[in-house]
C-alpha cells in the first residue's frame, strides 16, 4: 500500500484519468466543468508563482495582473484581428512575458519587501489601467471572447484546457529540474554563492519573471476563452494574495504543492459561497491551521509515502527546513 502511495507514476496516471473522465463523472454539468477549468487556471498560475517565490526566492504580490493581461490579450486580439486560437494562446503568453520582462528589469535591483511593494503596485495598477483604457478594453463593460467554431462546445474546450494544463505541468517540472531551475534555487539560497559559481544574477532573475509571466498569461488566456468574457475585476490584488496563500498552503518550492493549493482554494468557495462572508473566514482559517500544523504545506503529508523508512530519514526534514530558512533570508519578508 505504501509503495503504491509512493509511486509517482501511479499518481500521475490516476490524475490524468480523473481529468479525462471528469465531464462524465459530473454528467457534463457546466458548473462543475467551470470549477475544474478554474482550478486548472489557478494550478498554472500557482505553479508559475511558485517558480518565482518558492524556487527563485523572489516575492511577488502582483502575479494576478499577469492573468488579467493574458485574458485581455486574447480578448482584444480575437475581437479586433480575429486571430486563430492556436496563435492567440501562445501569444497571450508572449505578450505577458514581455510585460514580465519590463517588470523584471527594475525588480532585479530590488529585494524583499521593496520588491513586494513594486509588484503590489503592478498588481493594483493593471486593473486600473484596464478600467480606464476605454478604447482598447471597453472599460467597465469588459470584452466578450468567442471560441473558434471547431471548439465551440464546452466539452471540446474542456479537453483543450486539460491538455494544456498537463503540458504546462510537464514543462514546469522540466524547467525546475533543468540547469535553469537549479540556477534559480542557487540564487534563492545565496546570491553571493550563486554569483561566485558564475551565475549571472540579473539575467536569471529577469528570466524568472519572464517565465512566470508567460505561463500566467496563458492561464489568463484559457480563462478568457472558457468564460467567454473578460472584465477589469476578474482578477484583483486579492487573487494575487490568494495565489501566494495557495503555494504556501500547498507547499513551497513543490509542483504538487502548488497543484494541491490551487485545487483546494478553488473548491473551498464552492462549498462556502452559500453563506456570505464565510468564504474569507474559511480560507483564512485554512491558512492559519496549515501554518500551525503543517508549515511545509499540505504536500508534506505525503512525505511518509515517499520515504517509508522514516526513522533513518529523520534528518531529512531538518535539512528541508534549513532550505526553507534559506528562502526566508532571501525573501526577507
Amino acid at each position, binding site marked *: 500500500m505504501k509503495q503504491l502511495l509512493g509511486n509517482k507514476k501511479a499518481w500521475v496516471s490516476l490524475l490524468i484519468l480523473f481529468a479525462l473522465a471528469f465531464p462524465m463523472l459530473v454528467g457534463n454539468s457546466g458548473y462543475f466543468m467551470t470549477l475544474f477549468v478554474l482550478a486548472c487556471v489557478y494550478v498554472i498560475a500557482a505553479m508559475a508563482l511558485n517558480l518565482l517565490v518558492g524556487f527563485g526566492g523572489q516575492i511577488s504580490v502582483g502575479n494576478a495582473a499577469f492573468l488579467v493581461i493574458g485574458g485581455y490579450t486574447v480578448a482584444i486580439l480575437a475581437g479586433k484581428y480575429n486571430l486563430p486560437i492556436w496563435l492567440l494562446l501562445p501569444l497571450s503568453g508572449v505578450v505577458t512575458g514581455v510585460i514580465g520582462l519590463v517588470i523584471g528589469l527594475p525588480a532585479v535591483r*530590488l529585494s524583499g519587501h*521593496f520588491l513586494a511593494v513594486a509588484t*503590489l503596485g503592478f498588481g493594483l495598477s493593471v486593473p486600473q489601467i484596464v478600467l480606464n483604457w476605454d478604447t482598447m478594453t471597453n472599460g467597465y463593460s469588459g470584452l466578450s471572447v468567442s471560441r473558434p467554431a471547431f471548439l465551440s462546445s464546452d466539452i471540446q474546450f474542456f479537453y483543450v484546457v486539460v491538455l494544456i494544463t498537463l503540458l504546462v505541468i510537464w514543462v514546469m517540472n522540466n524547467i525546475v529540474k533543468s540547469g535553469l531551475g537549479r540556477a534559480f534555487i542557487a540564487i534563492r539560497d545565496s546570491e553571493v554563492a550563486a554569483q561566485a559559481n558564475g551565475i549571472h544574477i540579473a539575467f536569471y532573475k529577469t528570466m524568472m519573471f519572464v517565465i512566470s509571466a508567460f505561463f500566467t498569461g496563458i492561464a489568463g488566456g484559457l480563462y478568457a476563452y472558457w468564460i467567454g468574457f473578460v472584465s477589469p475585476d476578474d482578477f484583483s490584488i486579492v487573487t494575487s*494574495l490568494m495565489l501566494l496563500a495557495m503555494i504556501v498552503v500547498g507547499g513551497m518550492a513543490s509542483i504538487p504543492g502548488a497543484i494541491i493549493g490551487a485545487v483546494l482554494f478553488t473548491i473551498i468557495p464552492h462549498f462556502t459561497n452559500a453563506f456570505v462572508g464565510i468564504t474569507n473566514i474559511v480560507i483564512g482559517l485554512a491558512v492559519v491551521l496549515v501554518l500551525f500544523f503543517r508549515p511545509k504545506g499540505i504536500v508534506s503529508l505525503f512525505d511518509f509515502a515517499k520515504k517509508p523508512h522514516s526513522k533513518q530519514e529523520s534528518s531529512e526534514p531538518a535539512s528541508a527546513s534549513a532550505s526553507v530558512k534559506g528562502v526566508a533570508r532571501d525573501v526577507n519578508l
Partner: protein
Amino acid sequence: MQIIISGLIFGCVYGLAGLGMVLIYKTTGVVNFAQGEMAMITTFVSFLFLSSLNLPYLVSFFLALAFAAILGIVIYQVFMKRIQNQSHIFQMVMTLGLFLILNGVAGLIWGHHPTSYPEAVQGAPFQIGSVFVTPNELFVVGLTAVLMLLFFFFFKYSKVGLAMRASSQDITAAELMGVKVSTVFLSIWAIGAILGGVAGMMTAPITFLNINMMFTVLVMAFAAAVLGGFVSLPGALVGGLIVGVFENLVSYYGAPEMKMVYTFLLIVAVLYIRPQGIFGGEKMVKKV
C-alpha cells in the same frame, strides 16, 4: 497650495498606519498585512461605543485604543508567537490569513453597508492665508505630530524603548543582556495596533465606515513605509506625506482614477534610484 495641504493631511493618516507597520516589521520582522483590518475592527468597536453606549468621542476614542492594544496582544499570543521561528514569508502569509478572517468576521457582525462616522472635532472650515482647513484636519495633523514626538522620546529615553531598539537590532544579544524579548514583541504588537486604530478612526469620517475602508490606506501605508526605507520611523511618516501630496496632485492635475498607478510609478522610480528607500541607510548586504 490647498491641494498640497489636503495631501499632507491624507499623508498623516498613511504615515500613522505606515508607522505601525514599520514598528512591527523593524522589531519582529513581520510585514503585517492584517494591520488595516485590525484598524477597521478597532474603528467599528469605537463606533459601537459612540452609537450604542452614547459615550463622548474622547472616551470612546481611548476605549477603542485600549481594545486595539488587546487585539494586538491576542493576535500576537495566539497566532504570531507560534510561528515566530518560521521563515518570514510564512509569517507574512499568516497575517494574510488573519486579514481574511478579520474581514470575514467583521462582515458577519457588522454587515457590508457603509455607515457615516463622526469627525473627531466638529466645526466649519476656516481660512489660514489662502488655504481652507477644517478643525478636524488640524486635529489629525496635531495628533500625528504629538504621536511622533511621543515616540521619539519614548524610544530615545525610556527603558522599554531602549529594550525595543535593542531587540530590533539583535534578538539574541538583547536576550543575553536580560531583555525579555517576548514581552517586547507583545508591546510592539499592541502599539502597532493602537497606531493602526488611530489611523482607522481618522479615515472613517472621510471614507464612511465599512469593512473594506482600510484597504487603500493599508496599501498606501505599505507604499509609504517602503518609500521611507521600511526600517525608519520618521521615514514612514515622510513617506506617507510624500505619497499623500503626490496622490492629491495627480488627482487634481491628472486623472483621479489613475492616482494609484502614478503613485506606484513614483515609488518604483524612487526605488530604482535608491533601492533601500529614502531613509533606508546603507544597503543591507546579505551574508553568505
